[in-house]
């Protein structure tokens, strides 16, 4: 076995070790250690990506040398490696871009604990990406939930605590159902490892016993659907993303929910297998819920009065795109779902690290009426926000456009006129709604203030945050470049995803 095959486990362990170390050292050292760890994880994930693309076949890493039906496994293919690389890269940007606000929002003596949570979150996310065992998946789902709850509550105000409690209640419901699903799957197949479970399921399906399988999958899907914000359970999102510290909001919206979706996709494609999954009625339920989310998320976003809450509701709409892609199915559908995971991670994290900078020049307010003209006062934040907003709307050259294009193509490839018409209609409505609130916001932040006296007062920054620190610039520029890369060179990443899908099952 090549040395590269150790990297998935090493990256999980490295994050855990650095998580423990962060509790012992000063905030400044903790920040540096976290940054170093993330860079190492990114490097290792990239190495695995290069390795798997090169060899063209996945590898299985057996923990403790116990063979298949008993032991625990990690599995590395190009898709897992691509996700791990993208997630760790976006994570670095989230940490860099929001670190000025961590200094303000988190109590001084507890800042190292914030980085502890970031490391714990990373290790759980990496474990969800790499694991090949359903129960391990459940354990790390809980760890991810706990650490993200900590990231919300790190900023100690009444509303973040409340948001954290609401988030936890919804998530506990989700993990309870997912645990039940895993237990039922074990009762059904006698296995927790994904590959032996798949063999058992193939036999069960051949004998015609699909009802228990559908029930089990439905329980798992509801569980992880609640946790990732699938319609109609997205109402916890605005409080959670809107009130936590920018790093927390960016990480939660762009990465944490994607971890759950990736695990769900793994269960559909690897445990159940595409040939059985594509005949189950469940995928149409997912597609319909995805479409409902695309419209409902956008409608609620239009009504929001606070820029962060608007961005949070738009997350619900974007998550809808992912589930619609999974529902359409086939290589084209899964590809667009996975591509949307990357695009949304890059775009939403950029939105959440720029909005506080717009608020900083508007009397620390995220309300739209106060933000009028803020793009002129904080020029860099205005430009970065506009780039992210244009991508969300789907302007060509930005990544959001490619997603919409591929979604239409995948619906066309499915070959059913009714499905194509439905998807195109919802895609059209969703794009118009997206344009309504994002373009409105861009126009608003470049508009003149109505009252000239207010302009004088508002142009003074509160002085708490440096208007543009080097780390914030670096993170934003990387995220914008990432977005343009996904938009202009979409075939590069799409080919990687297709290659990864071919070795995913």
């Amino acid at each position, binding site marked *: 076995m090549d040395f590269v095959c150790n990297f998935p486990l090493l990256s999980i362990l490295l994050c855990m070790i650095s998580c423990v170390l962060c509790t012992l050292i000063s905030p400044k050292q903790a920040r540096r250690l976290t940054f170093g760890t993330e860079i190492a994880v990114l490097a290792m994930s990239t190495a695995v990506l290069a390795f798997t693309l090169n060899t063209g076949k996945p590898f299985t890493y057996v923990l403790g040398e116990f063979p298949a039906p*008993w032991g625990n496994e990690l599995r590395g293919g190009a898709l897992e490696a691509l996700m791990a690389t993208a997630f760790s890269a976006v994570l670095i940007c989230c940490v860099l871009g929001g670190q000025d606000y961590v200094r303000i929002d988190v109590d001084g003596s507890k800042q190292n604990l914030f980085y502890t949570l970031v490391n714990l979150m990373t290790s759980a996310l990496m474990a969800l990406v790499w694991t090949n065992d359903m*129960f391990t998946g*459940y*354990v790390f789902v*809980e760890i991810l*939930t*706990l650490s993200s*709850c*900590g990231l919300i*509550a790190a900023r*100690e105000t*009444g*509303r973040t*605590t*409340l*948001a*954290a*409690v*609401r988030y*936890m*209640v919804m998530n*506990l*419901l989700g*993990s*309870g159902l997912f*645990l*039940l699903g895993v*237990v039922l799957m*074990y*009762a059904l197949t006698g296995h*927790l490892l994904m590959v032996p479970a798949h063999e058992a399921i193939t036999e069960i399906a051949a004998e015609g016993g699909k009802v228990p399988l559908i029930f089990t999958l439905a329980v798992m899907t509801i569980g992880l659907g609640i946790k990732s914000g699938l319609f109609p359970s997205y109402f916890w999102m605005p*409080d959670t993303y*809107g*009130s936590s510290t920018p790093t927390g909001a960016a990480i939660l919206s762009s990465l944490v929910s994607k971890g759950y979706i990736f695990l769900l996709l793994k269960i559909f494609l690897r445990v159940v297998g595409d040939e059985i999954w594509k005949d189950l009625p469940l995928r149409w339920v997912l597609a319909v819920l995805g479409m409902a989310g695309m419209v409902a998320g956008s409608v609620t976003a239009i009504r929001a*009065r*606070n820029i962060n*809450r608007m961005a949070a509701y738009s997350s619900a709409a974007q998550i809808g795109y992912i589930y619609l892609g999974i529902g359409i199915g086939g290589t084209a559908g899964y590809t667009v779902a996975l591509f949307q995971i990357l695009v949304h991670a890059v775009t939403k994290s950029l939105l959440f690290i720029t909005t506080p900078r717009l608020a900083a020049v508007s009397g*620390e*307010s*995220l*309300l739209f009426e106060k933000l009028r003209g803020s793009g002129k006062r904080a020029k860099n934040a205005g430009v970065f926000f506009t780039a992210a907003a244009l991508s969300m709307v789907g302007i060509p050259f930005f990544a959001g456009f490619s997603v919409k294009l591929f979604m239409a193509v995948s619906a066309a490839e499915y070959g059913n006129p009714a499905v194509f018409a439905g998807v195109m209609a919802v895609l059209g409505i969703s794009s118009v709604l997206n344009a309504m609130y994002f373009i409105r916001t861009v126009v608003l932040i470049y508009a003149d203030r109505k009252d000239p006296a207010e302009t004088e007062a508002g142009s003074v920054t509160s002085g708490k945050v440096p208007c543009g620190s080097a780390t914030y610039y670096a993170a934003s520029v990387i995220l914008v470049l990432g977005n343009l890369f996904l938009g202009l060179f979409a075939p590069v990443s799409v080919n990687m995803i297709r290659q990864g899908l071919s070795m995913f099952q």
Partner: protein
Amino acid sequence: MIKGILNNYEEAVAVILFVAGLGMLLFRRNLIMKLIGMNIMDTGCFLFLASMGYISGRKAPILTALPAQGTDYVNPVPAGLVLTGIVVSVSVTAVMLSLSVRLYRRYHTLDIDAIYALSKHKLEDR
């Protein structure tokens, strides 16, 4: 039907526990009650899991004398899973309790709707 339930009484009890816990987690307004509900729900899962690994007439999977036969023992995997699950459940409960304490100190109530009403205007406006 009744015979089937009697034969699988562990599973039946597990389902009752799970549904009762789920109902408490969803519909109770008191945070502590919600937490207890979550614990009952998890207990239902664990009972279900543990009952699957139990084979009547066999011993706990602890080797006392060699040579040992696999057919002498119950399935150890579900027991291991239940242990892991309990650890997870305990840590989640601890985190939730600490959050509840923090909320109580600020709002002097544990009723989630009342807390939400108290903070509603602040949530919208910043």
